[in-house]
């Protein structure tokens, strides 16, 4: 059975716009013999069970994610289609460690360069999704990817590259230096004089250098990263990430610039392996229908197969799926469901109980909060007429009124006291009046 590799569509002269997809293509290109697999630029992550591309289809099985794919290939070919076999212990360990390094340090760089930076995103990245996805989807996919990219890079403090988002909202600054002692923020004239990329140039350079340097050192004079004659899974990943850093022609090419100026060895690695792995790629290759035309064409190295023409139904389905994922609470629930389905753990009693307590606690907390608001007087019932009447008086004068009210009540008390005394003095007279009645005597 022919394996189908589903990926994000081609861009920048590369077979895919996503680094992991490129890595998977490179892996299959090296490990799986020609004719046993085809490449489909379906650009629809909903196909895969893990909701990500690359995804590999083998009959009824769907495998999502680069790592899962190469584990699966090793299984289904009984250890034949493996690139990392036979490495020395140290090389295998390096392969694992540097794979993690490339993913964890390379992804933020790609995010910043292709998605967070406003100029690059609006001029290059967003338009290119029009060429690889059918009509309504390019309106939804790039913003979603961009939002994820921003979240991933938030800890780097480089959100200034994105000048779309509104900065007028004061940021929740974690600094312990008081406001008055901080250096002034970038002013409008500063911003006009320079793009955010130049302002952040030093940080970006440092980030990029931190990524490239260990890789260049690891490769040294070897042909590939961990071995001189074996193309490993690490090389696939590195090729995917490095080629997306080097090849796109962007309005703000800080990443490619750092790479070409400081790390020519890595650039050479990309150039050489890119043409060996992917050949020359053009967007129409991926969508050309006539297989015959492609076969005669020597230029095309990859076993492209045109994606199934999306019927309006499937496109609509994909559209509403991604819409639903973007709605705050519903999206969260959908993600939870997906996770549970995938982990094959049916909702057992503990989770049901947990859910119950959760709902209970939320209801309780809301109730408590409202009660607290009443108690503190943040919320009041509309005043009744009587209360309105009562208010009129010294209270209208504020604090002075309060003081005067105390005085008034004091004077009231005095008046009362006097009245009582007067009464006491009058009482005996009344008695006398009653007792002594001259007419009766």
């Amino acid at each position, binding site marked *: 059975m022919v394996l189908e590799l589903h990926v994000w569509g081609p861009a920048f002269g590369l077979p895919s716009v996503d680094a992991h997809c490129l890595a998977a293509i490179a892996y299959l290109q090296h490990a799986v013999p020609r004719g046993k697999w085809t490449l489909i630029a379906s650009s629809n992550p909903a196909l895969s069970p893990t909701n990500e591309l690359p995804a590999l289809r083998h009959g009824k099985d769907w495998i999502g994610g680069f790592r899962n794919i190469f584990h699966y290939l090793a299984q289904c070919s009984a250890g034949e289609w493996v690139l990392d076999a036979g490495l020395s212990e140290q090389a295998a360990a390096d392969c694992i460690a540097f794979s993690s390094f490339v993913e964890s340090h390379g992804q933020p760089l790609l995010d910043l360069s292709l998605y967070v930076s406003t100029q690059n995103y609006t001029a290059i990245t967003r338009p290119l999704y029009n060429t690889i996805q059918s009509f309504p989807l390019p309106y939804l996919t790039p913003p979603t990817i961009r939002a994820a990219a921003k979240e991933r890079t938030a800890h780097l403090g480089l959100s200034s590259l994105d000048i779309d988002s509104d900065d007028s909202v004061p940021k929740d600054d974690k600094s312990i230096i008081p406001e008055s002692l901080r250096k002034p923020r970038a002013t409008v004239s500063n911003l006009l004089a320079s793009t955010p990329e130049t302002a952040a140039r030093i940080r970006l350079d440092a980030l990029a250098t931190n990524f490239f*340097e260990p890789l260049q050192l690891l490769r040294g004079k070897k042909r590939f990263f961990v071995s001189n004659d074996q193309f490993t899974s690490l090389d696939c990943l590195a090729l995917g990430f490095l080629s997306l850093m080097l090849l796109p022609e962007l309005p703000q090419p800080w990443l490619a610039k750092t790479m070409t100026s400081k790390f020519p060895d890595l650039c050479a690695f990309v150039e050489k392996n890119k043409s060996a792995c992917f050949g020359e790629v053009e967007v129409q290759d991926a969508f050309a229908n006539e297989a015959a035309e492609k076969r005669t064409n020597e230029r095309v190295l990859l076993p492209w197969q045109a994606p199934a023409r999306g019927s309006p139904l499937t496109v609509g389905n994909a559209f509403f799926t991604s819409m639903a994922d973007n709605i705050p609470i519903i999206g969260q629930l959908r993600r939870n469901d*997906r*996770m549970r389905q995938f982990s094959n753990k049916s909702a057992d009693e503990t989770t049901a109980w947990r859910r119950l307590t*959760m709902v209970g*606690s939320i209801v309780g907390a809301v109730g408590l909060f409202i009660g607290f608001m009443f108690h503190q007087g943040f919320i009041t019932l509309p005043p009744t007429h009587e209360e309105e009447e009562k208010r009129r008086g010294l209270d209208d004068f504020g604090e002075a009124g309060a003081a005067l009210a105390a005085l008034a009540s004091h004077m009231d008390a005095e008046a009362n006291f006097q009245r009582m005394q007067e009464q006491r003095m009058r009482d005996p007279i009344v008695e006398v009046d009653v007792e002594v009645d001259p007419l009766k005597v």
Partner: protein
Amino acid sequence: MPAAVDAPEETLLTSAATSFSQQSTKVKDLFSIPPPLKKLFDKVPVLVYSPNPLPQRTPKSARIPSLYVFSTPKDAAAGRPSFNPTCLKWQTFLNIAGVDHRLISSNNHASPTGVLPFLLPTAHASASSQDSILPVPSNKLVKFATEHGAKVQESPSMRYEAYQSLLDHRIRNAWLYTLYLEPENFDAVAYKLYVLPTSTNLLVRASISYDLRIAAEAELLKHAPIIDIDDLYSEADKAFEALSVLLGKDTWFFGGDKPALFDASVFAYTQLLLDESLGWKEEKLCRALRRRDNLVQHRQRLLVKYFGG
């Protein structure tokens, strides 16, 4: 005015005095409190209370810097390892660097940066600048240690960053999953450590545990569209394998003759995963670690050397 000239001086003086006293009483009348108000004020005596004493648990000015970590007050007093990996990493680092410090059991709300650990240096009598008593966040601790005379040797190996990324991503992700999202472990371990000490109210506890789990989930979903449990565990297993190969037969990582920050980072996870007293229920991650004998011994060495066994 002849009359004035003729008049004896006393008269003049007395008349002047009377006119002055009349004027001054007028002024006094102007500024004096009207009787009703005076009565009112007499009812409110001005009383100055002595200043409140500081709360009992206010930190006493210490001789040595204080490291604020997640811990129980008892463990903190005894200097036992913290139960939070990041805190434990820096606690171990300070122990290795020989920076004398005391531990204070705390939580994120106490920290100026919002995360633990942080170090509160002692106020030096000589240093008058404000800097000397500003809290030191964890990313400045290496600098702090070198400034305070500790010899911090970091190996310049090209592998350093790569293997560090194994700890910071692969193992951390598996740790987040196994501690917060594995229901059995959450109830047995995380609930006891992070939720119980914060409140006695059941509702508050339920809400905090919900928050913790959601935060862990959000952190994992940042890097992958779904939480693929098998992948998390198998990647952590491979990460331990790689670390085990890196350590090899050496005593400390990168062949140093003394442990360094990297050893502390590894110890932060190995100690907690191998600590029987935490009571792990789902031990997949612990088992993966136990299979690597040299990592287990590495943890034992650090535990004996810096935490007294």
